[in-house]
């Protein structure tokens, strides 16, 4: 039983937003909305500065508050890889999950349901990487089974210094950022 996750190398990421636009075309995300996005954090004083760039999206948490708060069960953990998904036809658009997600990863689709990153499970099930990973010109994104010690993602986490977003939220996110 796989446990899918992502590892993103902040050292090589150039913040070009190719991941954002690839997701938009792959998943037909409506104009004005995004399932993934890029943040930049600049610290220091000119000219001694540090810039950290993050490509962010749903963290597909091991402990997903969006799933536990969902009144209809539309938000659920998919059997394949533990990916967190929304069954659109069961979603009533109540926004409880939007409030519960500490990563601000969800939005209400114009068609009325909560929407967000699916880890491109439709691609993963065909043996492809998620669209954002496959497109990245900096090759900074990696996808795989975190429970498989031989997987590239596991080896990167084992060998490189890394962090996750908002660890104190207790969500146990599955996207790791290499430093």
């Amino acid at each position: 039983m796989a446990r899918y996750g992502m590892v993103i190398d902040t050292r090589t990421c150039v913040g070009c937003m190719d991941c954002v636009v690839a997701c938009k075309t792959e998943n037909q995300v409506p104009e004005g909305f995004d399932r993934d996005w890029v943040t930049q954090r600049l610290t220091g004083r000119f000219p001694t500065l540090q810039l950290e760039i993050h490509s962010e999206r749903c963290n597909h948490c091991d402990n997903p508050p969006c799933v536990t708060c969902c009144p209809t069960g539309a938000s659920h953990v998919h059997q394949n890889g533990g990916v967190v998904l929304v069954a659109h036809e069961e979603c009533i658009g109540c926004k409880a999950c939007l409030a519960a997600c500490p990563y601000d990863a969800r939005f209400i689709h114009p068609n009325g349901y909560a929407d967000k990153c699916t880890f491109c499970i439709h691609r993963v099930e065909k043996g492809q990487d998620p669209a954002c990973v496959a497109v990245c010109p900096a090759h900074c994104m990696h996808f795989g089974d975190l429970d498989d010690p031989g997987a590239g993602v596991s080896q990167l986490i084992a060998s490189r210094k890394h962090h996750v977003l908002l660890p104190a939220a207790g969500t146990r996110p599955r996207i790791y950022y290499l430093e």
Partner: protein
Amino acid sequence: MNGVSRRRFLKITTAGAGAAALAGVARSVPGALGNVADPGGVRSVPTFCDICFWKCGAIASVRDGLLWKIEGNPEDPLSRGRLCPRGTGGVGAFFDSDRLRTPLLRRSRRGEEEWVEVTWDEALGHVAEKMLRIRAEHGPEAVALFSHGLGGAFLKHTLKAFGSPNIAAPSFAQCRGPRDVGFGLTFGEDVGSPERTDIRNARCLVLIGSHLGENMHNTQVQEFAEAVGSGASIIVVDPRFSIAASKAKHYLPIAPGTDLALLLAWMNVLVREGLYDKEYVATHGFGFEAFAAEIAALTPEWAYPETGIEPQRIRETAREMARYRPATLVHPGRHATWYGDDAQRSRAIALLNALLGSWGRKGGFYAPASMDVPAYPYPPYPESVKGKVDNPGHKYPFATEPLTNGIREATLSGTPYPIKGWLVYASNLIQALPNAEETIRAIQSLDLLVVVDVVGSEIAGWADVVLPEATYLERYDDLNVELFREPFVALRQPVVPAPADQKPNWWIARQLALKLGLGAYYPWRDIEEYLDHRLKGAGHSLDQLKRTGIWRGPKQPVYFDEGVPATFATASGKIEFYSLQLKQAGFDPVPKYQRPPVGPPGSFRLLFGRAPVHTFSRTQTNPLLADLMSENEVWLNARVAARYGVRTGDRVRLKNQDGVVSNPVKLRSTEAIRPDCVYLVHGFGHTAKGLRRALGKGASDAQLITRYAVDPLMGGTGMNVNFVTLELEA
């Protein structure tokens, strides 16, 4: 940039968001997994991208008859299976609601953008009639063509057949020209496009103003990330803390316009400390002793007050470059028209590389190769009696390509002979050339301005006749016979039909030629026949290439030590440390630094550059790319902003030294720029009514570039010589 939050990003991008999905596949398909279902029925078409001019191989997908997405072609050596964000968003060009749909004839005064829709027959008939009249009165040379990119190939052919040699692109005198001239004078060859830079094997990479990662030439950025990932030592010289600077081991926040001083001091250190590649210089160099004497006094201490870079840092970075030579690549950049001393600055970059022995070596500059695909056998073009108009008397003796600004000048002055017609293909001259007022005055003296474009750009707004071109997703173009690390040929082919009455350039150019009585130059009836003829001549076929998109040739040696002959097509046959031909023409044989003029007190130097999600001023109406970035911001140093009491998000106008005032633009108060300059991403602040999605969003750097410094060697227009003040909007 500081702490842009998710909510903030959404706040910026949701303005005007409707419920319509971006691409035509707006159907909601709530599958069991909550995704767009994959019904099969996906058709894949290999082609190559045209959102910029890198020409990345791509595979477009059509699902249930509707254009869906476009991805890199894994067989393509340029994209290596991954497009950049602009390329990935390329499908947005098809869906752009601001596309030109049908030929247009002007029906009021120039620039008022009032049109009558006409048929192609009427439009081209009108153009041909005017061209023939101009030819009868002034000769064929009086019609000039401005054309950028492979798409213009056939229009060039038609104009040459018509008898005019006046064909220019802003990519020379407004972009890479000085670089190509500086390298040509030194090594006898330029760096080309795609650049022959071996970034992926560089162990030390020096970027001077080159902001890879924001400037998104795909292969360059992929290799840059590869070099960063493998621990190459990165040195970045830039007045702005760019993305590339954030990856650097050494960031040198140089005073704008003083790069040549830094380059000379670096070379001084390498020579004085004996760190240069002595064997390489002795074998391949010409005039090294005279060169060394010229730079002997140009120490880091000399350069310090010019550049603001401490002597110790200049020495440290010079030694860093020497440590990794010859795998040290001092990148030549691409957009090099900055201060008017640009060919000499580029020559200094070439000389620094020569001292490091990086030309022809792994991790430096490789020798590119291309495949032999014979040209289509046309009748010879008529000889021009008058010759080219743009550079009379070889005023700019080292110009290697025609000058757009030279054609503009001739149009304005009527000398050396009158220019009465402009054809403009896919280059928005209002935003690409400095001083738009001069361009507009030149246009007003024309008998004919024809613009071929995909959207109603500013230059299209001034046209007499606007011809709507099909996007790259809907057309064939000429073959891309690429000169690269490994040779290959690529095919652009239609993925979907054009949505309205748009036509491909080959069709437009051919129909125009027929109306001009130049049918002998178009013996082929359609482009497939042309392409197949060329490919058969090379031992391949169109049928084969339509399936694969890419035809790769055998790998060739790329370095001197792999067998590439170390020959140099210079006057001396060697690398010219000291240039006798420059000396004979009255120029410095070794580059000399001159302090750049400063602006009015209290003003900021205006710098401009690229964002990763847009190309020039061409893509701002692409719905996918506009959704990522719909306006630019003006960057201002945070401490300066605090002093003036302005904050990020405030709307300001920029006013230049000549009183030109920009659109309101959002301020970005940031630590990531020097206090003496401001920065805009180029391509925003559109004024054309036809660009509804982009109209009035952000500010145009081009509008503020009223002054330019012409490079005396090659006629390029240095554009970083304008100064602005900021006015807060009420």
